[in-house]
């Protein structure tokens, strides 16, 4: 069956501007992504792997429109794409309560107006989905553990029922046992709600566990793409081999 593409990227180049601090200095343009093409299919979990500075987060930000200086094509099937970030301590506003944070996406929704009652109902529904008791709505992020915060971050992303979520290293800052729980939650959302997930990680083991496809990135390029089982068993690219060896997989 030919699956539908929810994200289609063709020859994407992203640049970062670097201002020199001195006013005499000139602007430089630094190419971070050097022509990336990739497809994300409806209902899958695509793993994006690579080491720090390889451009995987840049790709994510380009998809949601946070990078402006880009060339190439990004076609999105759904306009509302949400993100979950790595650090659950910085992705939740410390001065707001959990309930407020969850309601905020509905308050600023441009598609429709939500009445306070509708908002409350939606919040309760999401709290159930992410497995947190509703007493926590009255707490501040600082009163939650790392794993609970990451659940809230996922909840915030889910509020407007998006079809696509980009998760940027969502478990890297967590303890291993908590990691497993969050991965389970993501898999469950993918299975039960049919949400397509672009899963960014440096951990090839985690990617193997939950992803349908994997793309290996280095220096702003995709080095290898395929089904994890096949890529891991028979890596074509030297860098992929190096990563697998380093992770103790091969």
């Amino acid at each position, binding site marked *: 069956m030919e699956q539908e593409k929810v994200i289609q990227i063709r020859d994407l180049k992203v640049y970062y501007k670097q201002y020199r601090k001195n006013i005499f200095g000139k602007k430089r343009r630094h190419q971070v992504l050097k022509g990336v093409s990739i497809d994300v299919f409806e209902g899958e979990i695509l793993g994006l792997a690579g*080491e*720090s500075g390889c451009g995987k987060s840049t790709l994510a930000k380009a998809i949601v429109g946070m990078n402006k200086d880009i060339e190439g094509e990004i076609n999105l099937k759904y306009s509302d794409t949400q993100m979950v970030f790595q650090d659950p301590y910085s992705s939740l506003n410390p001065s707001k309560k959990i309930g407020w944070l969850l309601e905020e996406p509905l308050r600023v929704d441009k598609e429709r107006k939500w009445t306070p009652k509708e908002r409350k109902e939606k919040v309760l529904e999401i709290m159930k989905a992410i497995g947190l008791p509703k007493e926590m709505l009255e707490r501040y992020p600082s009163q939650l553990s790392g794993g609970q915060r990451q659940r809230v971050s996922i909840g915030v992303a889910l509020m407007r029922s998006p079809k696509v979520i980009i998760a940027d290293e969502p478990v890297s800052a967590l*303890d*291993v*046992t*908590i*990691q*497993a729980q969050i991965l389970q939650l993501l898999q469950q959302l993918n299975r039960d709600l049919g949400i397509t997930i672009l899963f960014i990680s*440096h*951990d*090839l*083991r*985690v990617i*193997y*566990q939950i992803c349908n496809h994997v793309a290996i990135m280095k220096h702003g390029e995709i080095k290898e793409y395929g089904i994890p*089982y096949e890529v*891991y*068993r028979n890596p074509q690219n030297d860098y992929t081999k*190096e*990563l697998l*060896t*380093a*992770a*103790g*997989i*091969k």
Partner: protein
Amino acid sequence: MGNVILDVADLHIEFHDHDKPETVVEDFDLMLEEGEIVGIVGESGSGKSMSALAIAGLLKRHALTKKGRIMFNGTDLLTCSRKELRSYQGDEISMIFQEPMTSLNPVKKIGWQVEESLRIHHKDIDKKERKRRAIEMLTAVGMHDPEKLYEKYPHELSGGMRQRVMIAAAMIGEPRILIADEPTTALDVTIQAQIVELLRKMNREKGTAIIFISHDLSLIRQICKRVIVMQSGNIVETGYVEDIFRHPKMSYTRKLIAAIPQIDLS
């Protein structure tokens, strides 16, 4: 059975930073044989770093009480004078830390920092000899152009290079014990593999015993023979790594092992 060089028994650590005392390590035991690598694994708050800092004599920032004994060279490091403790620190017992970015002094040159232990413990070694050894050490940890590096500052190096410098500085006095507290956690996987390999090489060539602390059980499996599994201040299980992987006795150990995604490529 080899020669036991470090014998930690019944270690208790209690913090008094607040009104209510808080036990962070309870009943910690560790026998370290000459030249072996022992792993300590656990999640955040398991007390693994605290035990390591206690062994290295570095728990002075907190108001705390320590009980038990840490026998090294016939001396109890817990009760001996600070002066005696200092005479071992950096010379017989060295330590490297998780954050290579912040563990080096930003305003001192690499060379100065690498040879610091020599300057403190071996006053008989002159400046020229110190520099020779520092450069030898920097070469041994795989740095290119050590002469130039000697004059550089930490901010000019990448994270992996800084951790190599930390290892060079820790190893320059040829210590008998090296305590490595999550030395690769802040690094990329390929760099991580290089650092682990470097530690193995140091262990092989200099015969330094290593206490390797990590949250990553699969990494421990790559480098250690024996492992201690810790949870909330207590030792849960201890034994040979392969035994524990094959027949974990405690449910927490099983949970830790289950959390490692299994990859079966056959």
